[in-house]
């Protein structure tokens, strides 16, 4: 049977989390996809590769609240990472069609959530919705023949806090934007551990592979720490655009 290398790396800061995703991606072996499950402590705001940190994030408010900020290697929008389970799926074997690859990986998340009694569906290009509301945002990159898709599974959502950390076009717009997001986004109201187990099952069944629990190698950890320091904590990266 095929295997998926399973990494449960717990809660870490934003720079390390993004560094480890990149380190695992660089170390990806043919025939051995990796499922990484993790959380964020302290909470963090991540922005998409093409976004401007200054335009999207109230960096001062984040600093005062002890919230990390980081630019992802993937596109998409700004995300406030707090009460959520985050997954990364890294593989050298994947559909070349972008939508198909999103659908495949999101399908594994959807299968896992069904085990928790959460019925959800894939909305192209990169969302998972339940009851008409978004419960998961996903983003992927492809580099050197490796696909990285990471995504957030929202457990609870604090929209007011999220908007206290993000820039809005004008203060007049803030209440309207908050109300709009409250209408469109929700959490699944489950805890981290049970969601993690369910998502593992979802990947195993969807990919028809057994899970091989593992730890990041010493090389991956060293690279993650180096990337955390030199790239994901650096203004030259985070304020690139």
């Amino acid at each position: 049977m095929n295997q998926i290398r399973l990494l449960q790396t717990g809660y870490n800061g934003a720079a390390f989390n993004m560094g480890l995703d990149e380190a695992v991606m660089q170390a990806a072996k043919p025939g051995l996809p990796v499922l990484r499950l993790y959380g964020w402590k302290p909470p963090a705001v991540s922005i998409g590769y093409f976004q401007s940190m200054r335009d999207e994030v109230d960096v001062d408010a984040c600093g005062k609240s002890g919230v990390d900020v980081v630019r992802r290697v993937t596109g998409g929008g700004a995300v406030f990472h707090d009460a959520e389970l985050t997954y990364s799926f890294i593989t050298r074997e994947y559909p070349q069609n972008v939508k198909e690859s999103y659908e495949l990986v999101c399908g594994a998340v959807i299968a896992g959530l069904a085990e928790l009694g959460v019925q959800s569906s894939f909305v192209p290009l990169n969302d998972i919705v339940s009851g008409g509301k978004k419960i998961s945002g996903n983003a992927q990159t492809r580099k050197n023949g490796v696909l990285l898709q990471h995504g957030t599974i929202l457990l609870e959502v604090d929209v007011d806090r999220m908007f206290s950390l993000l820039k809005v076009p004008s203060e007049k717009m803030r209440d309207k934007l908050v109300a709009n997001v409250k209408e469109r986004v929700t959490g699944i109201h489950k805890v981290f551990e049970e969601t993690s187990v369910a998502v593992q099952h979802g990947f195993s069944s969807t990919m028809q592979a057994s899970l091989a629990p593992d730890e990041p190698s010493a090389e991956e950890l060293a690279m993650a720490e180096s990337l955390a320091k030199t790239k994901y904590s650096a203004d030259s990266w985070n304020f690139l655009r």
Partner: protein
Amino acid sequence: MNEMSYGKSVYKADKLLKVSLAFSEGVIRKVQICGDFFLYPEESITGLEESLAGTALQAGAIEEKTAGFFEQNTAYGFDAKSLAEAIMLARQNSEAQQQ
């Protein structure tokens, strides 16, 4: 050379485009394209921005200039037409600010 003008726009394509534009004499001098879109490979955005420098600030010219880029790279959330409209909106916003 005439004085440089600057404009910004927020344009709702399938995803949100945020354009910063510098132009003079009806020609794009520099443009930055931000937003929550997807583009593969990501680093190709730099080439797209650089290719627009020197292009006439007209929707048709911008579309024509970027058509090849969108054939060679995979973009989700925007295309040559919406990018041209976002850039023209930045010009419009710049001129409205000057008045």
